[in-house]
């Protein structure tokens, strides 16, 4: 593999580092200036990114035009203004994430959409049940995992992340006053990691993992149709679920009309495959997940915060399971 090229392009190397820097700056700013004064400053910084980051602009425009085309809603067609608004939504999102981390966003302020009672299962697993998996997305505010920890009332929530900045993020979480969720770095699924996760599930702990970003050093990816075009999704969360034979739920948090809405949807009662049909089964799950994600994009069209080329990996042959 041409590491250099991949390094230059991949979100985990530049985007996360950039956003970590921005996050730190924001954390510092909020502490010193307060949110009211910081907000216009952050808007200026985001304006600078908007003007200078041509690739990110192009990627967001691509997302918006795919969404408009796929949904048949011409009102969603991209313009310079609509792309800019998506950048501004990201600035708001950063500020909100800090509030979440500092514990300012209370559970009472969040609207919970949980028709099938995922939350009650989360609480029940505290009393001796098995844990489950939450697949989260970068649409909206993934940091509501923090709020989920509160939702679960002391049910340990392990957030699995791919990037190498876990230590830094944990420190930042500590600085921001957040101590209730645990970040675990998963670079690849090996036996020791799976055994550890399996014991956590048996102890009734829950695992949260992003379902919409392909990690750099993990070739396990599946190409499915997303918003009418081929995009690569990670196999990891689904392999993990199948190996642990546990239920999978989808977690998404969107800001609708200025208010956060946590949407919990059960997805698989028990992830399981027939060995001969493993790849096909996982492919079908991921396609269903991508379809679900596409529907949620319509609920909050400007809150898609994947600024890298989401559809880039969709060349033939990328659908390689091993």
């Amino acid at each position: 593999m041409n590491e250099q090229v991949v390094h230059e392009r991949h979100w985990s190397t530049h985007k996360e580092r950039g956003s970590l820097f921005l996050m730190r700056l924001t954390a510092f700013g909020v502490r010193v200036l307060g949110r009211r004064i910081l907000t216009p400053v952050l808007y200026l910084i985001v304006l600078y990114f908007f003007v200078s980051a041509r690739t990110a602009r192009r990627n967001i425009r691509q997302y918006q035009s795919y969404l408009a085309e796929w949904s048949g809603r011409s009102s969603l067609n991209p313009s310079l203004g609509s792309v800019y608004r998506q950048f501004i939504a990201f600035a708001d999102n950063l500020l909100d994430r800090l509030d979440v981390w500092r514990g300012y966003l209370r559970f009472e302020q969040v609207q919970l959409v949980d028709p099938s009672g995922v939350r009650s299962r989360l609480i029940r697993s505290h009393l001796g049940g098995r844990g489950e998996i939450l697949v989260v997305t970068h649409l909206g505010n993934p940091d509501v995992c923090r709020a989920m920890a509160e939702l679960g009332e002391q049910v340990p929530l392990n957030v699995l992340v791919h990037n190498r900045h876990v230590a830094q993020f944990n420190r930042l979480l500590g600085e921001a006053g957040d101590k209730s969720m645990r970040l675990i770095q998963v670079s690849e699924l090996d036996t020791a990691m799976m055994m550890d996760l399996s014991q956590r599930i048996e102890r009734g702990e829950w695992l949260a993992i992003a379902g919409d970003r392909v990690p750099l050093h993990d070739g396990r990816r599946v190409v499915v149709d997303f918003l009418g075009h081929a995009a690569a999704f990670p196999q990891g969360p689904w392999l993990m679920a199948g190996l642990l034979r546990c239920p999978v739920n989808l977690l998404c948090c969107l800001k609708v009309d200025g208010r956060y809405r946590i949407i919990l949807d059960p997805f698989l009662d028990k992830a399981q495959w027939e060995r001969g049909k493993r790849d096909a089964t996982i492919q079908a799950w991921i396609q269903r997940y991508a379809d679900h994600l596409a529907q949620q994009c319509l609920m909050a069209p400007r809150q898609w915060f994947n600024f890298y080329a989401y559809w880039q990996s969709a060349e033939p042959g990328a659908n390689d399971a091993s």
Partner: protein
Amino acid sequence: MNALQQEIAQLIIDTLNLEDVAVDDIPPDQPLFGEGLGLDSVDALELALALQKRYDIRIASDSKDARQHFTTVASLAAFVQAQQDACKS
């Protein structure tokens, strides 16, 4: 094939749902991966979890040993035996 080897061969068949394979079809020294039984890396993870549950053993992460333990039924049996002996003493 000793008792533990048979047990592990059966565990492999049950865990991976190898319907058309019998214990006798997995000689202790036949490679489990690639050419032999044709298992892959995901099967290995599934197997590791099943072994952990059945025998309460730990398998270290990045060690090359871990991979070697999974070469054949015989090497798995030896590994399980060694782990159990270590726990007893």
